[in-house]
C-alpha cells in the first residue's frame, strides 16, 4: 500500500498523466492549449516542459481532426489522450468518436484496436451558458464500443485515468469542473482504480442514492442531513457509467427497497433514466416506492447565477427526492 498525500482533483489528473507518460512512451497528449498554457483548466500543466512537443501537442481549433487523429494514432499503436476544453465541443467530433473509435474493433472483427482516451470537463456552475455547460454522458453510454468514466474524488480521478489510459478500448473520461479544486488523499505512484466497479460511499439501510460525479457530494451531504433525522441513506457511486456495475447497485436496492438516482445530465433520455431502467429490471419486486430521479432541468443552461441555480441539481433537490422516496 503506497503512502497517500492530499492533492487536488486537477493535480491528481496531472499526476496520472505524468506517470503514464513516464511508464509508456507511446502515451501522448493532444488538444487545444494543452501545451504552453497547461490546459484551460490546468490538467496538463508542466507536461510540455517535461515531455516535449512531440508528446504534448498544441493543436489548431479543429476538434474533428483532433479526434480523428487520435483514432489514427491509436490504430498504429500509440495511446493518445485528447482533451476537449468543454464537453459541448465534442459535438464537432461525434463522427470520429461514434462512427470510428467506437465501432472499428467490432467492424473489423478485432483487427483494429483503438486505445484512445477522450477527456472533457462537463456541466455548469461558472456561468458560461448553454454552449459550455452540457453533461452529455448519456449520448456516449448509448454507443456500443465506448466506455464512460466519471470520477468524483481526486483518488479516483488518478486511479481511473491511469486505468483508462491502459485500457485498449476508447474511453470517455469526464471531469466536473467544479471538482477540479477539491482536494483529497491520493495514493502516490502506482494507484489503479479498475473500470467497471462501483463503490459504496456511505452505508445505509433505509434508502439507496445512486449518484454520479459532482452529485455524489450532494448526495453525501443529503445523507448526513437525513442521518440527523434518523434515516440511514446508502450512497453508491458507479464511477464507471459504462460498463455499469449493476450487481452492486442491485445488491443495495434489494436491501433498502427504495432508490434515488442523481445525475448532472438532463432528465429526458439521460443517464438517470438508464439507471432506473436497469435497477427496475433487477429489483422490481424489491421496490417499495417508485425510483426518484434528480437531474439537470430539461432546459439549456442559462448564464445568470440566479437562473443557473434553478436549473442545476442542488443538495435540496436530493434531500427532497429522498423524502419523497421514503414517504411513498
Amino acid at each position, binding site marked *: 500500500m503506497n503512502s497517500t498525500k492530499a492533492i487536488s482533483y486537477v493535480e491528481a489528473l496531472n499526476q496520472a498523466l505524468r506517470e503514464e507518460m513516464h511508464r509508456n512512451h507511446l502515451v501522448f497528449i493532444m488538444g487545444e492549449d494543452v501545451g504552453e498554457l497547461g490546459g484551460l483548466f490546468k490538467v496538463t500543466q508542466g507536461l510540455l516542459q517535461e515531455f516535449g512537443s512531440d508528446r504534448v501537442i498544441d493543436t489548431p481549433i479543429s476538434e474533428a481532426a483532433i479526434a480523428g487523429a487520435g483514432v489514427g494514432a491509436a490504430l498504429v499503436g500509440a495511446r493518445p489522450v485528447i482533451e476537449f476544453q468543454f464537453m459541448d465541443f465534442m459535438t464537432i467530433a461525434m463522427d470520429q468518436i461514434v462512427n470510428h473509435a467506437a465501432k472499428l474493433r467490432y467492424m473489423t472483427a478485432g483487427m483494429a484496436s483503438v486505445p484512445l482516451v477522450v477527456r472533457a470537463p462537463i456541466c455548469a456552475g461558472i456561468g458560461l451558458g448553454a454552449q459550455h455547460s452540457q453533461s452529455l454522458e448519456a449520448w456516449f453510454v448509448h454507443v456500443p464500443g465506448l466506455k464512460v468514466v466519471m470520477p468524483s474524488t481526486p483518488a479516483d480521478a488518478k486511479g481511473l485515468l491511469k486505468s483508462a489510459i491502459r485500457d485498449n478500448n476508447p474511453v470517455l473520461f469526464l471531469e466536473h469542473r467544479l471538482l477540479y479544486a477539491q482536494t483529497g488523499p491520493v495514493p502516490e505512484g502506482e494507484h489503479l482504480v479498475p473500470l467497471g466497479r462501483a463503490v459504496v460511499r456511505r452505508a445505509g439501510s433505509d434508502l439507496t442514492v445512486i449518484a454520479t460525479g459532482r452529485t455524489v457530494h450532494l448526495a453525501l451531504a443529503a445523507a448526513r442531513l437525513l442521518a440527523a433525522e434518523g434515516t440511514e441513506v446508502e450512497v453508491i457511486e458507479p464511477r464507471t457509467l459504462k460498463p455499469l456495475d449493476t450487481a452492486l447497485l442491485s445488491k443495495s436496492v434489494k436491501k433498502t427497497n427504495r432508490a434515488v438516482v442523481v445525475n448532472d445530465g438532463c432528465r429526458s433520455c439521460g443517464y438517470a433514466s438508464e439507471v432506473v431502467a436497469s435497477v427496475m429490471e433487477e429489483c422490481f419486486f424489491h421496490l417499495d416506492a417508485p425510483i426518484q430521479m434528480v437531474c439537470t432541468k430539461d432546459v439549456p443552461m442559462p448564464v445568470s447565477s*440566479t*437562473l443557473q441555480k434553478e436549473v442545476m441539481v442542488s443538495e435540496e433537490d436530493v434531500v427532497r427526492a429522498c423524502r419523497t422516496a421514503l414517504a411513498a
Partner: protein
Amino acid sequence: MGISRTCQPPASGSEPISAETRLEWYTCMCTIRAFDREIITLNRAGLVAGTAHLYIGMEAIAVGACAAMGKSDLLTSTHRGHGHCIARGLDMGRMMAEILGRADGYCQGKGGSMHITAVSQGMLGADGIVGGGIPIAVGAALGLRLKRDDSVIFCFFGEGAVNQGSFHEALNFASIHRLPVIFVCENNQWALSAAFAKTTAGQSVSGRATAYAMVGETVDGNDVEAVFLAASEAAQRARSGSGPTLIECLSYRHEGHSIFTRQEIRPSEEIEHWKRQDPIERYRRLLIAGQIATVERLKEIESEVRSDAERAVMFAKNSPEPDPATALSGVYE
C-alpha cells in the same frame, strides 16, 4: 431611452469621407473601448455573469466594417462580440445588463456576453462556438435570397476559426451559390494560447480565399478607414451579385483572452509593439493632423463616451436579477 452609437457610412458612398463621419467613427471606437474597460472594473467587483472577451485593441475592425453596412444588412458575431454590437448600434445598457446576467439584458440573463443578440437590428447573435456562426451566416444569405431580400450579411470570426471544418464548408458553400456574404476575419494573431503562425498552414487567411475562387484581401485592421474601404467594396460586390469576399483584418487584442482566462503567454515585446499601433490612438493623431478635430473636441468626445459607458453600467447595475421562474420557460415556442 437607450444608450447607443451609430457609425454611418459616408453620406454618399462617395469619397471623401466627411469630417463628421470620421468623428462618428472615432467616437464609436472610443465607445467600444470605454465599454469594455468598464467590464474589467465590474469583473473585479465580481459582477460579471460568467465570462467576457474584450474587444480592446480591435475597435477599428468592427467600426470600419459596420460603417459599410446598410440598415437592413445582417451580421453574425463571435465570443468576442461587444465591438460588433456597439458598432451596429445596440443599446449599451441592455448589453451591459446581459453581461451582468440581469433581467433587462438582451437575453434576459440567459445568454450572457457570448450570446448577445438583437435580431431586430440584424444582429443574429454572438456565438460561443468558434466557427459556429460561419455556416449560419451563409444560411442566412440563402434565406435572404429566397425572400428576394437584397440585404447582405457580414460574418465576423477570429483567425482561430479558419482551421475549423465549418469555415471550409461554409466558404465553399457561399462561393458556389455566389451568396452575399462578407467574411470578416479578425486576425489578432492569437487563438487563446495558439499562435496563428504555428497552427495555420500557409500563415495567411486571405490566401485561403483562392481555394474557394473567392476574392481575398488582407487589410490593416487597426486602420478604420482601410477596413471600411475593403468592407464597402466587398459589400458592393455582394450586392451586385458577384458573391462573397474574405477580408482578413490584421490586429491584436490588448487584454488577456477573456476575463476568465487571463494568463498571458504572448511575448511582452509583441504586446508592446501592437499597443503602439493602437487603432484609436492612430486615428486620433490622424484627425488632429488633418485638422478634422481639435484636441479639445476629442477630449469632449472621450469624456462623453466614458459617461455613456458609465450610464450603461448604472443601467445594468440597477437592473434586477431575472425572475427565477423564467429559468424553466422559453425553450419552445
